């Protein structure tokens, strides 16, 4: 194994970094140059992990903007459901009116049929 091949064998573990090939591990044990290289990788990965706690402040307006866009999305959703609700109400109203008119006609025709002729 050559020292240059080490980079391809370095993997991360919960503890830091390791060499995932037995030939590589054997080589590292006897190669100071590669031990130093592994130490650099450990340092790199350790530092990368610490970046998670480095937070960038977006300023208060970001939350306001996000909430406004959620509000807008919520309103659009509400509007859509209202519109579809209105359609249901409109169709339902038409059905009720038609049924009502039909009922009125039936009652009227029955009333006419039962009309008692006036005496004399």
């Amino acid at each position, binding site marked *: 194994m050559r020292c240059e091949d080490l980079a391809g064998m370095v993997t*991360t573990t919960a503890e830091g970094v390791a060499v995932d090939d037995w030939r590589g591990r054997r080589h590292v044990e006897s190669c100071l140059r590669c031990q130093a290289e592994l130490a650099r990788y450990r340092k790199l990965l350790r530092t990368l992990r610490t970046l998670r706690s480095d937070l960038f402040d977006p300023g208060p307006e970001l939350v306001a903007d996000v909430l406004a866009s*959620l509000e807008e999305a919520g309103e659009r959703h509400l509007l859509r459901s209202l519109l579809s609700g209105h359609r249901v109400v409109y169709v339902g109203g038409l059905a009720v009116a038609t049924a009502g008119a039909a009922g009125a006609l039936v009652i009227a025709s029955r009333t006419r049929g039962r009309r008692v002729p006036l005496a004399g």
Partner: protein
Amino acid sequence: MSDASDTVDALARAAREGDRRAFEELVRSTSTETYTLAYRLVGDEDDARDVVQEAYLRAYRGISRFRGDARFTTWMYRITANCAVTHLERRRRHRHEELADDAPLADHCAERDPQARADVGALRDELTQALQELPPRLRAVVVLRDVYDLRHEDIAAELGITETAAKVRLHRARARLRARLFPERETREEVTARAV
């Protein structure tokens, strides 16, 4: 498990049940972390803001699908990564500015004294800068894996690549960061390139 994480997960459960106020509280609790990830991925404040807005909108629409078997923040990281990739793709189409994977990084530290960079704070600053100089496709993988500890399969899913491709990108990204931060020794790629 920290109290703050528990609170966030409790809010996520309430939001999943349709509690709108709980979702708004989630935004307040997690927006700085989400913005930080977005900024690390896209490298621009305005773009990061757009990504965060889009990410929370997607989260809001999909909160009923959040099963709760992972942390809410992890779920949010995945959505943010996906939004960032979409955003970068759109930006690339418009600006044609993305660097190729093998474009050389500017070497800002060659003339510096290595001893002066021993300080951890300085190394973090330098690493932050080096990450910003990586091509976005390499940066996304190393940030999601090594900073945010997402699994290879999740990274691959959100970036729309195979797990193998994610691992290859991770290796290339680490090698470039290593070369940038510790330029004392050539990387394997540089040795190979010199030999060709």
